[in-house]
């Protein structure tokens, strides 16, 4: 069949920095371990199978710098190995416990196989999942891109351009030092764009980024191809917009695929259901119940008693939903290609953690979609945005509108009565970091001072993560978010004062470098105020 258009699926993988060497185990580190078991390794297994079967596909994966750092970290790798061993052990106990219930027993055996497969993949890549992604990048099927250093929400950090520049550049540098090349594309945290950001992206060598639908639809010029072709921001950087249809099919809580009654119920986990004494070795401190990853029920339906999960039924539904998705894309491409002056591109970005964690069947669905999309009877191909730009270099010039993919399309999720208190502090810290770097410019800096200045920059970046205000608003692990931002700001304040007073305590500095060991190549001098960054005049005594 003639190729009439393209589908670009982008997975954005990100977790905040949840490394806690000051504790022997820490609840929030489980976020990483769950994501490795349920999302990243299943994704790698999908890519391995597609590769083995020589399926022709193209997928884009954005890896955040904080996630990159944690996946590479020796301490977290060893803690993950311990976590996985416990999961296997629990699955084996479950096989014995459920031996008189055939349905549960079957599921328990399934989980054991699942965890064993996870272990096998992890060992195969020598605990280095980044090498797996790099391998698939080298096959030409996977495009790798990145995002801001600590996923800072740039529209609320942009009163200080140095801050935004460092979020972008530190992110790109982290990616480059781990993968050996610079990314072409950039995932704006929360698709948070504002006019002017395209200039900073261009200065950093980025060729394209993503906005939400209304970012392009409300651009400075009416987009003649809607969201089905990128906009040229006037400086060679291209803006691709999220497609509403393909987004709704997956993300919609009411109508999206993940909500189907045959899929696994996320909230039904044996960590919360089984006897305390039995489950104690597998939950936090032996007392605080947490997810174990072993869940026996399917969604079933609202107000209904949860039914046991049926693997075969789920599999049938996966294939049905994959076919449905492909059919819808085909219809959309057919419609669009007849009216556009170029081949349309449907841009379908999703959080990577949806696939496997929130939606257990997600990776299998993705695999089915990519297999179906590669078939010759399809009227479209999967593509990355880089490929699309190689095929079609001239695009309508317009600046996207300020926008995000947040709840209401703007910034309110990140600044509201739950989290507004943080902004005076993080803005002030950014100004102080600039001042520190500028004051030391041209001076001979001792090794100790340099280490302290670099560590101050790390603390600042970590305080700027958009995850903290997001969590405060969503009300999930609020105390943890408050603790993290307070920790990082306190560490920054401590370092700032120590540097200013020339009283750097090396023992304390070493402790901070050990706890926050991210961005090893950071250079505080990137915070030096440049003439164009000079702040507006401020009245003072």
């Amino acid at each position, binding site marked *: 069949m003639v190729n009439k258009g393209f589908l670009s699926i982008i997975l954005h993988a990100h977790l905040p920095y949840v490394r*806690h*060497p*000051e*504790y*022997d*185990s*820490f*609840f929030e580190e489980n976020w990483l371990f769950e994501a490795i078991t349920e999302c990243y390794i299943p994704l790698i297994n999908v890519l391995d199978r597609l590769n083995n079967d020589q399926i022709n596909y193209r997928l884009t994966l954005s890896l955040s710098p904080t996630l990159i750092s944690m996946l590479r970290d*020796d*301490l977290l790798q*060893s803690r993950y*190995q*311990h976590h996985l*061993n416990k999961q296997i*052990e629990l699955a*084996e106990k479950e096989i014995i416990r459920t031996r008189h219930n055939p349905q549960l027993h079957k599921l328990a*055996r399934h989980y054991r*196989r699942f965890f064993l497969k996870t272990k096998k993949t992890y060992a195969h890549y020598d605990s280095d999942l980044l090498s797996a992604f790099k391998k698939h990048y080298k096959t030409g099927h996977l495009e790798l891109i990145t995002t801001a250093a600590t996923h800072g929400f740039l*529209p609320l950090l942009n009163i200080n351009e140095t801050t935004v520049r460092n979020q972008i550049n530190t992110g790109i540098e982290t990616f480059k030092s781990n993968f050996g090349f610079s990314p072409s594309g950039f995932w704006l945290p929360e698709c948070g764009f504002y006019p002017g950001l395209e200039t900073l992206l261009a200065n950093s060598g980025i060729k394209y980024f993503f906005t939400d639908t*209304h970012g392009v*639809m*409300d651009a*400075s010029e009416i987009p003649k191809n809607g969201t089905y072709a990128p906009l040229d921001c006037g400086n060679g950087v291209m803006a691709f917009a999220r497609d509403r249809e393909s987004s709704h099919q997956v993300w919609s809580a009411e109508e999206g695929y993940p909500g189907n009654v045959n899929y696994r119920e996320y909230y039904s986990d044996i960590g919360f259901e089984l006897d305390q004494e039995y489950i104690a070795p597998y939950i*936090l*401190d032996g007392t605080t119940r947490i997810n174990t990853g072993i869940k026996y029920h399917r969604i079933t339906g609202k107000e209904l008693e949860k039914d046991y999960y049926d693997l075969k039924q789920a599999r049938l539904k996966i294939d049905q939903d994959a076919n449905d998705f492909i059919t819808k894309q085909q219809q959309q491409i057919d419609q669009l290609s007849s009216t556009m002056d170029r081949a349309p591109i449907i841009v379908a970005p999703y959080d990577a953690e949806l696939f496997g964690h929130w939606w257990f069947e997600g990776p299998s669905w993705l695999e089915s979609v990519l297999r179906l999309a590669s078939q010759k009877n399809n009227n479209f191909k999967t593509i990355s945005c880089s490929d699309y730009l190689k095929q079609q270099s001239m695009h309508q010039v317009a600046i996207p*509108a*300020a*926008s995000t993919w947040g709840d*209401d*399309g*703007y*910034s*309110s999720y990140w*600044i509201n*009565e739950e989290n*507004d*208190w943080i*902004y*005076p*502090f993080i803005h*002030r810290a950014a100004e102080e970091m600039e001042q520190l770097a500028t004051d030391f410019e041209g001076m001979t800096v001792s090794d100790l001072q340099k280490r302290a200045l670099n560590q101050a920059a790390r603390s600042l970046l970590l305080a700027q993560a958009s995850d903290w205000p997001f969590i405060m608003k969503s009300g*999930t*692990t609020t*105390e943890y978010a*408050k*603790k*993290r931002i*307070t*920790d990082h*700001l*306190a*560490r920054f304040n*401590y370092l700032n004062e120590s540097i200013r007073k020339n009283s750097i305590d090396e023992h304390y500095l070493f*402790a901070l470098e*050990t*706890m926050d060991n991210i961005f090893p190549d950071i250079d505080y001098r990137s915070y030096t105020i440049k003439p164009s960054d000079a702040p*507006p005049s*401020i*009245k*003072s005594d």
Partner: protein
Amino acid sequence: MDLRLSSGKNFNPRISASEMIKISHKISRDFSPVEPIKVDTSNIKLTLPSQELLRVSQNINLYYAPKIVSVINKLTLLAVDPRHLYIYWNLANSQAKSLLQPMYNNDVVLRIYSEPKQDKINIKPKPFIEIPIHTFQSQRKISIPKTSKHTTYSADIGNNSENNNFTSLVESNDLHVYKESKLFTPPTSHHDNDVDIQDSEFHPVDPILFSTPVKSHYASTNHSGLGHKDKDGE
């Protein structure tokens, strides 16, 4: 038990060989003993014990947690959505503080302009709204008129003198607010502390009388951020 039952021409199993193989494979797949992953700790270079790291972290938090104290005047605008912007200020210098005394009878005002800051040499009157303020520090969400085009806001805090001259104490950043979208319904949520600017031409609104309550920003309770120390480390 006669072992000859298991072999020889009298052996008559009730189950076929292929089925036996199938069952054997299934049992092997599901019940083979598993050697746990060897947890490799050789590369971990934690040269400070975790207790010491925790002690350092807690000490720093105790003395350096962020506090609502600032030594410079500051006025900042942030964009929330097409119908709201967010403003926070801090007046730190003695001049500003003296102007704010006595409470409720001073002429310190917040001026919000729906235009960017201008070069002071080019004096051109621009429309503004004035909100009397009586606090050194505050942060507020402010409702603004809807707009379908790119609009820039700026603000000043200053003093209206007796002969109606305005002296700026601190200027804000320029803020490009969000443009109203054809695709989204403008949010209309309002909270008690929000300030409304009327949709029509600017005119004075009620003064902001109450400061933001001083909150403790040191997380003194820690329900979700649960760290665990092994018994040896306690």
